[in-house]
């Protein structure tokens, strides 16, 4: 996304008003200083990401009243995200100016008071709304009235802010709906001198320079995207002049540039950033026009390469066009094209992908590779609200998947193959420890998803506690390894009829009878409880075509808008897999 001047957003917002998108979010800003321009910028930036963003900006410096008054406009607005933006002058009051050298005890007391005040505000918001709360941390003051002697005192204003930030972080770590936005780092990145213009502050308590507001909002979008399940899952990389300098086919193994010298360092840095993302669950793929043998030799043997063959879940090095390679990568990895970020140094290739597959985020790269790493670091696309064990194990799971595909191509018929896999399914009901992963799947699963209803983690928790609702999930393993929790279902119980509100399956395990087995097991559970019929729904979206005939093929019958299964009928569970139920 290209970041523009503030005046662009303020004007553009009037034009985009009529555009409608499927994804919607309600964003509230509450703060202690002037936040004009925030609403317009986030609406326009969201629109560029195909999100309808509705905003609310609380009256100037009314954050206490807005939170404490339960009939406030903030609560009436029903936000999905609240940004609580309090500046360090407001929090420090007079201490911002006057530091004493021996007031340690008073300062500690002050710190406790301020922390209690803030955590109390956050607790009230959590009680009154299901909204995510993002609280900005505080900027460490760059001036001390003590001058160079500041470093000799035991506890001063800087320590108050450091401790307050630390305590807020600890507080938010244990609160699922609350996140800390590291504004102190934003100020470090852009520089206090560029952010805070005293004339603007005196004029209208404007504390962030106009043309940096769009950069701040871009970082805020890093929260919006994962809430809507729009975070990216995969980085697709070109090779020559992207992962290393020069062209291996022309300059040879020894002629490529990567290593501890000026032209080689950028690529090491870039690869390290990529590798760190992959360790937290982002999958990597290669899409390169090259001689496979030359390129693989670099990847396997070059002493300074950081990324090796095992880091990539899919490798397309050939002379096919990049568009079909890209589509194959998405297909093999079972991910949507819209969850891909693409890096290629060649502007022609970039233009090609942008034109033909606009849903891919194709990154503009400068000619000089020195900035590649920083460009990647600045992307807001890879944020997740939770990093689960499944994420960190994902790469290994894809490796197992490739072994499965090898077995499939060496086995003659599908049934034989499925038998050989020794699939075991473990179903868990209302399991509190799985809520994080369940909500992650609910937010991001598109293809095998009967109703595509999106629920936030707080709602799932309520369902788990609700006696009339079952929240189920299933772990799957086979001879090649575990796939972790890859299925979720939500059932609403009535006395004679159960309704399947949600049923989804991670697409990497589709088509092995697992979906039939889990559905069959649900039907068996219902039958055991004396239920007569199961009602299900299919809501067609742009992406869940593969699931269209699932209910019908299983034996559900159409009844108006719904699909019905009478439990007196035979319940099918494929016999080649094992299903276990943990209640």
């Amino acid at each position, binding site marked *: 996304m290209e970041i523009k*001047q*503030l*005046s662009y957003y*303020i*004007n553009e917002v*009037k034009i985009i008003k009529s555009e409608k998108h499927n994804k919607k979010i309600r964003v509230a800003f509450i703060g202690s200083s*002037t936040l*004009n*321009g925030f609403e317009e910028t986030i609406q326009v930036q969201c629109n560029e990401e195909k999100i309808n963003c509705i905003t609310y900006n609380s009256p100037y410096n009314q954050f206490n009243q807005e939170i404490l008054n339960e009939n406030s406009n903030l609560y009436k607005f029903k936000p999905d995200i609240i940004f609580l933006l309090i500046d360090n002058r407001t929090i420090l009051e007079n201490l911002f100016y006057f530091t004493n050298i021996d007031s340690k005890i008073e300062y500690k007391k002050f710190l406790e008071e301020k922390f209690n005040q803030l955590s109390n505000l956050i607790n009230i918001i959590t009680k009154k709304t299901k909204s995510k709360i993002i609280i900005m941390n505080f900027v460490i003051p760059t001036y001390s009235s003590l001058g160079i002697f500041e470093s000799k005192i035991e506890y001063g204003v800087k320590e108050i802010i450091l401790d307050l930030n630390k305590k807020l972080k600890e507080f938010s770590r244990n609160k699922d709906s609350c996140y800390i936005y590291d504004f102190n780092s934003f100020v470090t990145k852009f520089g206090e001198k560029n952010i805070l213009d005293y*004339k*603007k502050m*005196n*004029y*209208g308590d*404007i504390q962030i320079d*106009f043309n940096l507001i769009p950069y701040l909002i871009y970082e805020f979008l890093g929260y919006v995207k994962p809430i809507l399940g729009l975070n990216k899952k995969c980085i697709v990389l070109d090779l020559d002049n992207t992962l290393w300098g020069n062209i291996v086919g022309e300059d040879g193994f020894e002629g490529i540039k990567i290593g501890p010298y000026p032209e080689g360092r950028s690529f090491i840095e870039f690869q390290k950033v990529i590798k760190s993302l992959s360790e937290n669950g982002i999958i990597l793929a290669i899409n390169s026009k090259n001689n496979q043998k030359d390129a693989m030799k670099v990847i396997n043997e070059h002493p300074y390469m950081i990324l090796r063959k095992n880091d990539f879940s899919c490798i397309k090095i050939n002379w096919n066009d990049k568009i079909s390679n890209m589509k194959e990568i998405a297909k093999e990895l079972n991910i949507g094209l819209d969850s891909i970020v693409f890096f290629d140094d060649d502007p022609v290739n970039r233009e090609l992908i942008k034109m033909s597959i606009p849903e891919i985020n194709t990154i503009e790269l400068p000619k000089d590779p020195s900035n590649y790493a920083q460009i990647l670091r600045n992307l807001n696309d890879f944020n997740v609200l939770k990093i689960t064990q499944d994420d960190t194990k994902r790469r290994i799971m894809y490796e197992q998947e490739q072994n499965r595909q090898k077995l499939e191509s060496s086995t003659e018929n599908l049934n034989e193959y499925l038998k050989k896999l020794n699939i075991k399914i473990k179903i868990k009901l209302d399991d509190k420890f799985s809520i994080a992963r369940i909500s992650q799947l609910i937010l991001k699963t598109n293809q095998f998803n009967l109703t595509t209803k999106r629920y936030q983690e707080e709602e799932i928790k309520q369902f788990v506690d609700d006696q009339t609702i079952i929240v189920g999930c299933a772990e799957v393993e086979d001879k090649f390894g575990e796939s972790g929790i890859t299925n979720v279902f939500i059932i609403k119980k009535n006395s004679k009829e159960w309704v399947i509100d949600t049923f989804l399956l991670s697409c990497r395990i589709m088509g092995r009878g697992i979906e039939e087995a889990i559905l069959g097991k649900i039907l068996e559970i219902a039958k055991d409880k004396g239920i007569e019929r199961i009602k299900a729904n299919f809501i067609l979206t742009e992406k869940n075509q593969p699931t269209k005939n699932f209910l019908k093929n299983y034996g559900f019958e159409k009844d108006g808008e719904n699909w019905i299964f009478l439990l007196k009928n035979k319940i099918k569970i494929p016999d080649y897999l094992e299903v276990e139920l943990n209640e």
Partner: protein
Amino acid sequence: MNENKLFSIVAKVFNVSVNQINYQSNPENIENWDSFTGYILLDEIESEFNVKFSIEEALQIKNIENFKTILKEKGIDIEKE
């Protein structure tokens, strides 16, 4: 030249066409001109002409004519080619 430059900044900030802008343009006759966008305008004029307005000068501005006067005091003649 400078007049064009000034008018196009104003037009860009308030999202109106350049030929709607003249020295009498003010918050009354330009819909998008409010205290906040007025300040954005000041900010853009400062950076485009590489000058700084004092807060007193900033508070004096009621129309485009005022910008011309203050810029002239700072050695920038808007009406000169």
